[in-house]
């Protein structure tokens, strides 16, 4: 059964190739069948594998399928091999499962687009690349997927390429993540040089034995890999591309920029967790990055008017939670949050997509309003998603996963009160801005006419995801609520090396309940505040906005805290400036100058050839004078 593993990435690849070469001839339904079908079958196979893992797990809870030797240089011998363990299995499930739902959704959402087959081709390619990323047995192969998803992200953000703004957003996404990737590549070089392999399990093995905890090498490697992770996952300081990435079609945002690709950074760190455990400083960095990101993104989300941008900032913020979790050693909590987040964020995006679809590509929440009544199903599913995001206690999956993170941020040996505080504040902001969005968009007076309602292909994924967003959290319950640890137990083999199993550090139910209550209070408080400010008494905001300072503050928040401007000034503009100024290539000008000197001398010498015989004779005489003088006087 496990031997079917290779089919999981191969099917989307086949789908991609079919669509690439025959996409135009298949017709729309054919494209839909190939595009969604290939991912669907992959999802089924992934489910089968999961079942196999649950019923008869392979030895050591992992399974490697080596396809062929990729390179063989010296002792460095990476293979094209797939590696399945609980961690990659969860990722695979989410990628294929959520991916399938989103494909299905796209069948309806993109139906009127002229580039239907290109869309599905890119989506399939993305799923393929993402699967390679998660299933890669070594980091080099992981890098293939890593860059592959980057490419697809680029292609899909710029899917509607006729608008220059979309192209720009796509380029930004690619380039910014590439900055992080470069750091990551350097990390790989370091690993190859120091440990001689990129095969993940060997690597972790060797790192654990060869590097002292806290050693410089481990720290450097960890930080370099972190560079890649923050780039891909839209974390500080490379988060700026993600809000712009919303230029792509909404299913793309759901799949790539919410559920799967942007969490690749989380996956990478989880995958190489041993290196981080060897470098506590790097762990701290991860946690701080996460904490800061979640706060900053949360703040920025308040000022957005585009529904997708709000969601984008919320994504950044939620991934910040995952980083926070990773940073405190809560590996499985991070993955748990990844999973629930994939469900509810995909749900939110798809629901938002339905709204946008219905309102004929209207994305501004201030122009929506009152859709609650017009699109009840969409409203309900969106509300489920929003609740999950806002972590409404007990009934939503987001609550459980976030709670696990907050708890560990406080209690883990790597944790810290400030980290917890940041997370808690984040929870407040999350619920506030989430419900700000809900209230503004779905309540109040309708401002835009609903053109057409989504059909079942779009509604079914919403329902499915809504279901998952709700029940997905019940597999991992806090200690005092029965202490179900299905997820953590399942993940455990993947984090076998983790020093001092974080989850085991039990601080008693009192503390846990206390923390949870605080978080719950903050979350609900946020909703209440949102209700007051955006639904009940919007004039408060209007009043505040009259002041110049507040408007500036709003603009500052709206711009994502000015990071774009900062980077423009520091990097983009100088680069463009040099490129513009030096278009003629100063080196070339140097040579041209030499040539010009030659021409000048030619011209000057030409003046000596006067054509007058007396002058020539004088030349001879002068030459004689010089020649003789030299001969005689030296």
């Amino acid at each position, binding site marked *: 059964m496990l031997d079917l593993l290779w089919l999981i990435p191969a099917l989307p690849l086949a789908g991609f190739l079919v669509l690439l070469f025959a996409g135009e001839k298949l017709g729309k339904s054919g494209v839909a069948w190939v595009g969604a079908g290939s991912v669907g079958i992959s999802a089924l196979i992934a489910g089968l594998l999961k079942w196999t893992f649950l019923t008869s797990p392979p030895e050591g809870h992992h399974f490697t399928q080596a396809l062929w030797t990729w390179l063989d240089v010296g002792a460095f011998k990476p293979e094209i091999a797939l590696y399945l363990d609980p961690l990659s299995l969860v990722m695979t499930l989410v990628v294929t499962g959520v991916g399938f739902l989103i494909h299905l959704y796209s069948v309806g959402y993109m139906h009127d687009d002229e580039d239907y087959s290109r869309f599905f081709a890119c989506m399939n390619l993305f799923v393929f690349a993402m699967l390679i990323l998660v299933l890669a047995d070594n980091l080099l192969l992981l890098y293939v997927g890593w860059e592959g998803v980057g490419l697809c992200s680029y292609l899909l953000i710029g899917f509607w390429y006729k608008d220059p703004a979309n192209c720009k957003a796509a380029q930004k996404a690619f380039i910014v993540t590439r900055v992080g990737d470069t750091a990551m590549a350097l990390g790989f070089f370091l690993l190859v040089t120091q440990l001689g392999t990129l095969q993940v399990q060997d690597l972790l093995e060797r790192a654990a034995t060869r590097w002292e905890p806290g050693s410089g090498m481990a720290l450097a490697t960890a930080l370099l890999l972190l560079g890649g992770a923050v780039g891909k996952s839209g974390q500080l300081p490379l988060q700026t591309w993600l809000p712009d990435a919303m230029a792509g079609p909404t299913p793309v945002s759901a799949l790539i920029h919410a559920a799967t690709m942007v969490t690749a950074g989380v996956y990478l760190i989880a995958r190489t967790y041993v290196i981080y455990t060897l470098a506590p400083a790097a762990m701290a960095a991860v946690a701080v990055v996460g904490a800061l990101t979640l706060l900053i993104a949360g703040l920025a989300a308040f000022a957005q008017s585009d529904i997708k941008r709000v969601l984008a900032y919320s994504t950044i913020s939620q991934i910040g939670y995952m980083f926070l979790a990773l940073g405190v050693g809560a590996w499985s909590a991070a993955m748990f949050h990844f999973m629930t987040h994939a469900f509810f964020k995909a749900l939110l995006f798809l629901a938002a997509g339905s709204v946008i679809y219905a309102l004929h590509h209207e994305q501004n929440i201030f122009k929506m309003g009152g859709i609650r009544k017009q699109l009840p199903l969409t409203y309900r599913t969106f509300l489920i998603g929003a609740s999950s995001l806002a972590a409404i206690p007990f009934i939503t999956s987001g609550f459980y996963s976030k709670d696990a993170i907050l708890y560990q941020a406080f209690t883990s040996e790597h944790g810290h009160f400030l980290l917890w505080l940041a997370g808690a504040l984040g929870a407040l902001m999350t619920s506030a801005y989430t419900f700000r969005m809900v209230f503004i968009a779905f309540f109040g007076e309708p401002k835009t006419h609903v053109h057409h309602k989504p059909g079942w292909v779009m509604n079914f994924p919403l329902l499915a995801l809504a279901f998952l967003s709700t029940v997905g959290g019940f597999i991992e319950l806090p200690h005092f609520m029965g202490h179900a640890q299905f997820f953590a137990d399942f993940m455990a083999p993947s984090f076998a090396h983790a020093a001092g199993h974080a989850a085991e550090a039990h601080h008693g139910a009192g503390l846990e309940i206390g923390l949870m209550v605080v978080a719950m209070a903050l979350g609900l408080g946020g909703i209440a505040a949102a209700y007051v400010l955006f639904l009940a008494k919007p004039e408060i905001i209007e009043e505040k906005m009259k002041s110049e300072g507040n408007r500036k503050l709003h603009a500052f928040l709206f711009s994502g805290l000015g990071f774009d401007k900062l980077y423009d000034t520091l990097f983009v503009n100088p680069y463009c400036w040099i490129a513009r100024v030096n278009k003629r290539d100063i080196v070339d000008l140097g040579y041209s100058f030499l040539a010009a000197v030659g021409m000048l001398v030619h011209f000057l*010498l030409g003046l000596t050839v006067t054509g007058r015989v007396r002058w020539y004779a004088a030349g*001879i005489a002068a030459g004689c004078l010089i020649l003789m003088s030299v001969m005689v006087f030296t």
Partner: protein
Amino acid sequence: MTEAQFVALSPLILVGLAALVVMLAASFKRSNGLALGLTLAGFAASLVSLAWAAKVAPVQVTPLILIDRLALFYLGLVFLTGAAVALLGHGYFEKRAGYRDEFYMLLLMATLGAGVLVATTHFAALFIGLELLTISLYALVGYTRTEPRSLEAGLKYLVLATVSTSFLLFGVALLYAELGTMEFGKMVDLIRQGGHRETLVNGAIALVGIGIGFKLALVPLHMWTPDVYEGAPAPVTAFVATVSKGAMTAVLLRLYLLVGGAIPDSVMTLLSVIAILSMFVGNLLALLQDNVKRILAYSSIAHLGYLLVAFIAGGNFAPEAVTYYLIAYMATSLGTFGMVSVISGREREAEELRDYAGLFWRRPFEAGVFAAMLMSLAGIPLTAGFIGKFYLLAAGVDMGAWVLLGSVVINSALGLFYYLRIVASMYAAETSAKPGAAAREVALLGSATLAALALCLIWLGVFPAGLITLIRSAVLGV
């Protein structure tokens, strides 16, 4: 005069005789073809007699002339070149009005003068040979007397050559006054022994150098070159560029071999400066020149600068390098100026760059040969010019003359620029070329000569071993 001496002199005698025969024939029947036939017969006879003379060589005929392997080798070179010029001239003057026989007479006499130069070991003979060559050339340069530029060139050449010869003569007179002999060998010995007035001798050598440098058109004695090359009829230009320079180089080589490298450093430095200046001035002046003949004139200045590098570098390779380079240069110059004469029309010569526009497509054969010649001048492989340059650099590297070599490299780049300008204009689209420059008919003999030259150029560029062996035996025989 012994039989051996007579045999040894026979190549020179035959060429002189040919001049007289042509003159005699002209008094009966003026015919371009006949004159050419007789001229070629003369050259052929003397070339054949070279083999005859080689059997008795070396022979000293009076103190004036020494027929040794070096002389024979260069005689062969000079005569072959002369014959080629005759062939080119046939087609060229066929298109033009006026008597043609005089051309062959003067050509033969000039060649004879050059022949004397390569075999001379005495300053009196040097002077005579030089003047025979030069006076014939005055008339040859001004040969197309209906063309003002030709006359102007003739006059300029006459005035300047006489000035420089006077310097030479004065120098020789001073040397003679101090040393009491005009024989090369004895003079070198006496100078080496010392005991004479250094300043006088040095000054005199400088004056002699002026005379030689003028013929070789080295900076600062180069200024006549472009004007004379431009004004002279193209075949004559070919002759001036090849025979007269080649003969003078032979003299220089002979002196060089006699001196045996014992040249004071100051002189070496001076020569280096002259070589470098010649390269730079020649190439820079040619850079944006639009007249092909002038371009080639300037390039010849530079080429003699290169040649001087081999002399200066000295060492084992120098004589070989000089000779090989000279041969390559002569063959190529002959080819380039020959090409100008072959494709020139009746009214005027094809000398403007734009006259060459589209030549590649109009007359692919000629253009191809011309391009090959230019590549040879530039020293690109597959041509003799490459082997020549290779030799030159080898000689330079052997002796570690890095400054000179650096100049050679820079100047090769400069040179390439204007050679490529010509090539480029040949494959450019035909534009509004001035009429009258294009030949309507193909000069069969001329084209055949050029084809042979091109073949020889490429043969020497690909299989140089044979010629190298020959040169070695000639040069080392001294």
